[in-house]
């Protein structure tokens, strides 16, 4: 039955997360935007505790995404400081064995705060993830990793804090193309893995975006996710690469949910401000009778709703164990772009209030933009949607 009603548990989850966003995230939002690489220790400790109690559990399901939306309404950069297995965990869930799940994530909720990261992008390859040049060479009971990874979200925290992990994508056989592409779990503190630098960014400045260097970094043989074999099969059927792509089907709707949180923040600010000025948005009045402001806000609201419902559908499908590759990319493409535009329009509408760093709106505009870039740019997601709509392979639509 088609239904849009949240369960009582989901409503409670939203309420609790919203309260954290309001009380814990918003008051320190500006500070960590302006003090880029400072660590929000109190927020980290508090969210780690709540996470392990279950009140702020952040997995890959509808309830978690509703929480994420609320926390990103609070602050998307600070949300990316919240400890947890993160994208590394998502990769292990997507292609790890039961034993690996237990070994890498079994104790993840215990002790001190821990982070999981995923290292994919390299200086020479972004969207074309099959072109990676980081190598993994078998040496007896170990793999030896060599290469450079950039734009690793949670990179520093995951690589340096005990108990954390980084899932690294590397090739075991460059000549095999996608078939040679494998992922490896590198525990925090492994010799040979080091943080080279932290990026200075347009937005989400509280989030540590790191360059990681792997210099003869040795990990146990059992840390490979999926099969070590290189099967030279059709490009579309390469398993290692597919593992990476399956991860994206799970993480793209989550990024869409993040975007939606930021978009809601901007919309709330605009609507509260114009309401204080005595302007009411008249829904249901013909377009030609609306003011330009009303038209803008109605268009923003509609695009917001479109993005939100596409996201909920992608998440719902995932929770039903239905393949959601198309729907995940639809949600991510729409939400990333819609929220980028909504926040930019919001700054325009608010004029001096929008542009001033006295308010958070300009920050949200900067934060929002990342959602149209990471976990697959808007264009990559459009390409995926187009291939699915046309039933084309990547060779037929490049």
């Amino acid at each position, binding site marked *: 039955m088609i239904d849009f009603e949240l369960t009582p548990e*989901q409503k409670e989850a939203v309420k609790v997360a919203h309260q954290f966003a309001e009380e814990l995230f918003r008051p320190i939002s500006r500070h960590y935007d302006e003090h880029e690489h400072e660590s929000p220790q109190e927020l980290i400790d508090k969210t780690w505790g709540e996470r392990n109690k279950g009140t702020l559990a952040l997995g890959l399901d509808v309830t978690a995404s509703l929480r994420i939306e609320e926390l990103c309404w609070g602050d998307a950069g600070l949300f990316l400081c919240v400890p947890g297995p993160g994208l590394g965990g998502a990769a292990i869930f997507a292609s790890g064995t039961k034993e690996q799940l237990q070994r890498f994530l079994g104790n993840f909720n215990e002790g001190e705060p821990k982070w999981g990261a995923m290292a994919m992008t390299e200086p020479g390859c972004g969207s074309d993830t099959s072109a990676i040049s980081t190598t993994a060479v078998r040496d007896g009971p170990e793999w030896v990793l060599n290469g450079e990874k950039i734009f690793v979200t949670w990179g520093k925290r995951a690589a340096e804090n005990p108990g954390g992990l980084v899932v690294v994508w590397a090739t075991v056989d460059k000549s095999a193309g996608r078939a040679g592409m494998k992922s490896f779990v590198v525990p925090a503190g492994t010799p040979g893995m080091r943080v080279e630098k932290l990026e200075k960014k347009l937005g989400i400045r509280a989030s540590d975006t790191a360059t990681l260097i792997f210099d003869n970094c040795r990990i146990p043989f059992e840390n490979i996710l999926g099969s070590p074999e290189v099967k030279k099969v059709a490009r579309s059927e390469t398993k290692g690469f597919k593992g990476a792509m399956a991860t994206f089907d799970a993480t793209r709707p989550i990024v869409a949910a993040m975007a939606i949180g930021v978009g809601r923040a901007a919309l709330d600010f605009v609507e509260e401000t114009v309401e204080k000025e005595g302007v009411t948005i008249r*829904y249901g009045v013909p377009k030609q009778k609306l003011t330009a402001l009303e038209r803008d806000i109605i268009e923003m609201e*509609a695009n917001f709703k479109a993005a939100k419902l596409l996201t909920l559908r992608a998440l719902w499908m995932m929770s039903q164990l239905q393949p959601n590759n198309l729907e995940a990319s639809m949600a991510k493409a*729409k939400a990333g772009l819609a929220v980028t535009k909504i926040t930019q329009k919001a700054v325009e509408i608010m004029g001096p209030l929008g542009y001033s760093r006295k308010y958070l709106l300009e920050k949200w505009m900067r934060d929002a933009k990342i959602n149209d870039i990471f976990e697959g740019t808007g264009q990559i997601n459009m390409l995926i949607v187009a291939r699915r709509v046309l039933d084309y392979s990547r060779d037929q639509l490049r």
Partner: protein
Amino acid sequence: MISFSPTEEQQMIVSMAKQFANDEMRKIYRQCDESGEIPDTVIDTAWNMGFVSSGIPEDYGGPGGEHSAITGSLIAEELAWGDLSMALHILCPALFAYPILEMGTERQREKYLPLFGGERYKTATAALIEPRFGFDPHSLSTVVRPDGDEYVLNGGKCYVPMAAAADLFLIYAAENGNTQAFVVEKGATGLEVGEREKNMGIRALATYEIGLKDCRIPKENRLGGEKGCDYNRILNRSRVALSAMAVGVAKAALEYSRDYAKERVAFGEPIASRQGIAFMLAEMAIEIDATRLMTWEAAWKLDRNEDATKEASLVKAYADDMVMMATDRAVQILGGHGYVREHPVELWLRNGRGFVTFDGMAIV
């Protein structure tokens, strides 16, 4: 709990509507558009599938199915995918029957509903739109005033579907600034049905201007009696129906232009293998899905008897733009071939432009 899965019963109705649209409507839509006529047999076949009648309760001689806005929007999408003129014609009696069903007095329900529960298509319609610039359903210039035990209606309407054949009209008029609905039967003095209108699109649908000159009707013909009707809810039901239909038309345009783009070769390969074309199709697909989900959400609110004004008006505005974008792109993808009447996309473009105007011409 959040779910995007229609019930089994809804899935059955959808597949029936889809098959009808494909097997019957798609065969004749061009000929209907050119001639301005829809064969009675198609309308009768559709009627017997119960798209309107199934919602009439058993107490009033109907099959007693559930009257749901979600089910209605699922049906409307499929029928509009087949052909918009025919969809509007098939569902036209609902313009009269559904407001009576939801908001009529017991007497009105007893008198009128049995006419719509049977096996014969019963022609009835509603008149909302008025022929002037800046038409706003919240400030009608058709007015009504009480006079003894009668009401007197004055004004003019346009885009009244099936008016020449209709036995029953639901006329929307301003009553001291508030809009209410009034039942006017065929042949009432002062009710004048004008010439058939000539429109850019929906050319197979017979629409008319009507005039109301001191049109007198009995007091009991006010929809809902003394209590009146919930006009906003009627408007919202209409917005949902039209949004669903816009999704159907846009989907038709997407599918046709997608298939064409895969067939049409330029510079040695199908034009679909170029991102310039492929991305247009991807965006159409995303916006169609988004609009459908927004339509469902508004319909869901209606089914829960909640105020759906915000959701319904947001999705309607969104759908108006979306269907224009999608049908225009379909023509663009076909290029010169899209502009000629051998292909259906020019027809969908003409139909698509109308949604922003079609207030109150369909209802769920």
